[in-house]
């Protein structure tokens, strides 16, 4: 399920894995064979003698798509393996569309929507009702959308659906639940400088888009404190009028389900489309940025620039380029920085290719304080090599095999097929996008790689952000010879008035 929106091609595992306790020592990420060096013919290769039979025939079951006259789209995906029914409504409009002075509104909306509940059943009563049935209804806010989802045993499907629809059409906003959500958000804000990875990822995003850009701006105590119940109500007004994408999956009969969904959604008025966004970006001046964190012994290095999006027509070649640069064990970055130099556990990166706005080019490395400059240089050299060291047919072949042989893991379950179709619908991509994308990947040539590298990789435009322990970083960052090192202030602004959180 993690083929997420705008995710990179191979899910670079370098991201903070988060969960603290039962520590699984992940061996790492994926990758690509860098150097055109390796294969000498001195030993037999027994694995090449193992036959690869024809893959069993496979016809992925596509969901049924129904577009209602009012513009709402329904997807039905029958799946009878387990006795469950789940559903989701994706609603256009998210945090990138909120008022900057109220940054965090959509996040608070996503939490308080469900916890408030409805006029008939408040949130606490809903918690009990669902827990008794081991069922779930949840709401959430994202950068470009909000969502309502539900899931239950087949036997409870009707009552849980009815409750979810009650929440969609008749929420009763609760001031206490908004306050609770504000407290949760305030806690995250207050704690955001505790995590080195959190700082690195947040601040590097600001360098890419500009600190105040909707894709980078952060919530502050003042912005979440200014969100009132009326703001949630007013945001919700758009929700039932939007271009809803309703998808259901599980153990049901499609004809009956279609009737039921039509009864709910056909009666709604013609949808109101979100206006097209006019994004503009204000990337930071290239150079070296530094954040001093005294309680760490490892630097988190982010090398970033503004990239491009999935509609660029170069997305297939860029996906292959990603694989060669930082995709897996055989990538140039992994081979050099981790395997050859032993300087990092986590290293990887490339272009993220979101569906409807430019993504970041982002290479990250984590290395002990003393080797910060060496590891940064090594990563910068590998980035520069994309325009210097010619791509080889062997690299191309390997990268394509990496991506294409496992391509079917994008649609090996009915759940994945459904969420893929919802995603394509949401962003206005053709339903056969995966097929055309796969065909485009197959056609990528060495010349294409060279061309996209020249078009999109600009070493002189990169910003390097280092979060680390300044006292231990020797040699210092000025040794990178990329101009004066620019400190970044990450002090958390405290509102003069008492914060929403500390009221007694």
């Amino acid at each position, binding site marked *: 399920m993690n083929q997420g929106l705008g995710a990179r091609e191979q899910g670079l595992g370098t991201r903070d894995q988060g969960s603290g*306790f*039962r520590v*699984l*020592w*992940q061996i790492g990420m994926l*990758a690509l*064979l860098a150097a055109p060096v*390796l294969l000498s013919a001195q*030993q037999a290769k027994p*694995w090449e003698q*193992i036959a*690869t039979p024809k893959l*069993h025939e*496979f016809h992925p079951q596509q969901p049924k798509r129904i577009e209602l006259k009012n513009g709402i789209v329904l997807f039905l995906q029958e799946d009878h393996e*387990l006795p469950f029914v789940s559903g*989701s409504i994706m609603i256009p409009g998210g945090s990138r569309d909120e008022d900057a002075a109220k940054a965090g509104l959509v996040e608070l909306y996503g939490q308080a929507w469900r916890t408030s509940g409805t006029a008939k059943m408040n949130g606490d009563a809903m918690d009990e009702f669902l*827990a008794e*049935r*081991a*069922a*779930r209804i*949840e709401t*959430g806010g994202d950068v470009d959308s909000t*969502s309502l*989802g539900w*899931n*239950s045993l087949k036997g*409870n499907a009707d009552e849980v659906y009815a409750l979810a629809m009650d929440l969609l059409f008749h929420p009763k906003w609760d001031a206490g639940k908004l306050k*609770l959500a504000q407290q949760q958000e*305030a*806690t*995250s804000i*207050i704690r955001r*400088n505790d*995590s*080195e990875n959190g700082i690195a990822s947040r601040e590097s995003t600001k360098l890419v888009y500009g600190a105040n850009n909707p894709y980078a701006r952060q919530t502050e105590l003042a912005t979440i404190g200014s969100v009132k119940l009326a703001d949630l109500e007013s945001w919700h007004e758009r929700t039932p009028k939007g271009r809803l994408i309703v998808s259901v999956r599980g153990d049901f009969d499609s004809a009956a389900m279609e009737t039921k969904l039509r009864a709910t959604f056909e009666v709604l008025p013609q949808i109101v489309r979100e206006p097209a966004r006019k994004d503009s970006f204000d990337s930071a001046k290239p150079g070296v940025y530094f*954040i001093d*964190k*005294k*309680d760490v012994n490892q630097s988190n290095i982010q090398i970033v620039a503004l990239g491009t999006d999935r509609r660029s027509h170069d997305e297939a070649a860029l996906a292959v380029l990603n694989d060669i640069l930082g995709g*897996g*064990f*055989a990538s140039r970055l*992994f*081979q050099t920085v981790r*395997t*050859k*130099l032993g300087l990092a556990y*986590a290293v990887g990166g490339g272009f993220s290719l979101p569906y409807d706005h430019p993504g970041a080019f982002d290479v990250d490395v984590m290395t002990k304080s003393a080797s910060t400059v060496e590891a940064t240089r090594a990563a910068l050299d590998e980035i520069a090599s994309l325009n210097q060291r010619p791509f080889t047919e062997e690299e191309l072949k390997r990268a394509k*095999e990496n991506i294409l*042989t*496992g391509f*079917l*893991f994008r649609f090996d*379950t*009915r759940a994945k097929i459904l969420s893929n179709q919802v995603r394509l619908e949401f962003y206005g991509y053709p339903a056969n996008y995966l097929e055309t994308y796969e065909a485009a990947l197959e056609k990528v040539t060495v010349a294409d790689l060279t061309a996209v590298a020249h078009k999109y990789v600009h070493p002189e435009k990169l910003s390097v952000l280092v979060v680390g322990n300044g006292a231990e970083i020797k040699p210092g960052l000025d040794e990178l010879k990329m101009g004066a090192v620019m400190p970044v*202030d*990450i002090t958390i602004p405290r509102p003069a008035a008492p*914060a929403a*959180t500390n009221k007694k």
Partner: protein
Amino acid sequence: MRKITPFRRLWLCLPVLFLFGFGSALLAQDLKSFEQKITVDKLPNGLTLILCERHDAPVFSYDTFVDAGDVNDPAGQSGLAHMFEHLAFKGTSEIGTTDYAAEKVALEKVEAANAAYEAEYLKPVGRDEEKLKALKAAFAAAQAGAQKFVVPNQFTDIAERNGANNLNAGTGLDDTSYFWSMPQNRLELWAYLESGRLSDTVPREFYKERDVVLEERRMRTDSNPIGRMVEQFLATAYVAHNYGRSGVGWPSELGQITATQAMEFHKKYYTASNIVVAVVGDVSKADLPMLEKYFSRVPAGPKPDEMTTVEPKQFAEKRVVIREQTQPFYLEGYHKPSYRDKDDAVYGAIGDIMSNGRVSRLYRSLVEEQQIAAAAEGFSPFPGDKYPNLFAFYAVPLPGHTTTEIGEAIHKEIDKLKNADVSDAELEMYKTRSRADLLRGLANNQGLANTLAEYQTRYGDWRELFLELDKVDKVTKADIRRVANQVFVDSNRTVAEIVSEAPKSANGGGK
């Protein structure tokens, strides 16, 4: 059910959707239908293969479950099991080398050079710095000599080019697990790769990989406030058992593990009888002879001796206070028995009632009513479950609230468990959800492979996955009160807390 992922961090990621529910009649059906899909095959060398057929898509997932983890690291070698896990990605005598015969000789020289260097380095008195320098250079030269024969990352390269998805491995304190998913027509290639790395590991590039693992330690533990706290917490809670020892390894020990030690660990613990391999997906019994052929390569050997150290009864409350410029955090734990205890399901019930979702007691009390925490949970087992472990509670204080308040609030909730019965509704919700969680886990090939292999290892029969629901159903209110009174006593408690210090400068600290 036993693999609780602690720190679900509800406070950061509540809008995660979906749990499941169903009646218990369905479970009996499920067990029956799984019995038809599953084949268990014990090979002559002692290795157990589990095959579970699921033909929805032409893919399979596997999990190789080795009944050894960092709890088995010998004294002075903490982190060894995890180091070996990294080595298992470095190839075999056939994969990853241009000339194994020559490489083998070169690797022996690396070991000799390292031993000479370490001997001088560790001299308590009279270390000769000039000699040390020369030995270090010789060690580097020997490594370079061996490196000439290496085809870097060839093992993973073959796997990835053949469609390996979600390729990774994990080393816990109790066990080590290797896994990925692949297109169904690569089954034989997979069997070649997996049986090869289990039976024919070559300690190549070991010392660079050790540097990589030291970076992993810096990332997870040293540079992470929660990681630092947990390491100190466990080291304090345990005085004898290896659960108290750093899993990734203390830096001085991890930094001196040798390839020879890693291979000795392999010889002792990677015997066929200590390994279960589960494959789930588009496979069939007809594949068994082929799989048997490959996995027979894994050396037979006795099941390693079980650890005999038993943590002595704790008789004094212990406390770790970390004062630093990070935000406050509260964690406490109580010693409790291993997963084999007759009350294992009772601990599950307590964890569920205290922590599962918005109806749970800790959420309702600390988060909603008192509004002193952003998240609060109690869970077990921690940090492992094969041996007596801890029932832990943690909470994330809201701004302006202290760890002292948090501790008191948690203890009030614990006292309620000890002094009054839980409600019928609470107990029923736990039972419903347990069945739900079980079924939920069946939906995914990789998850099912991990679970089948683990249950087969821990109980000798994967069916326990279904059968243990009987134990869940038998949990009573009296059981919960009895166990709470037994375990949640002050003298059995260890507390770790982070207490925020004021920043010394305006930039970079916590505030």
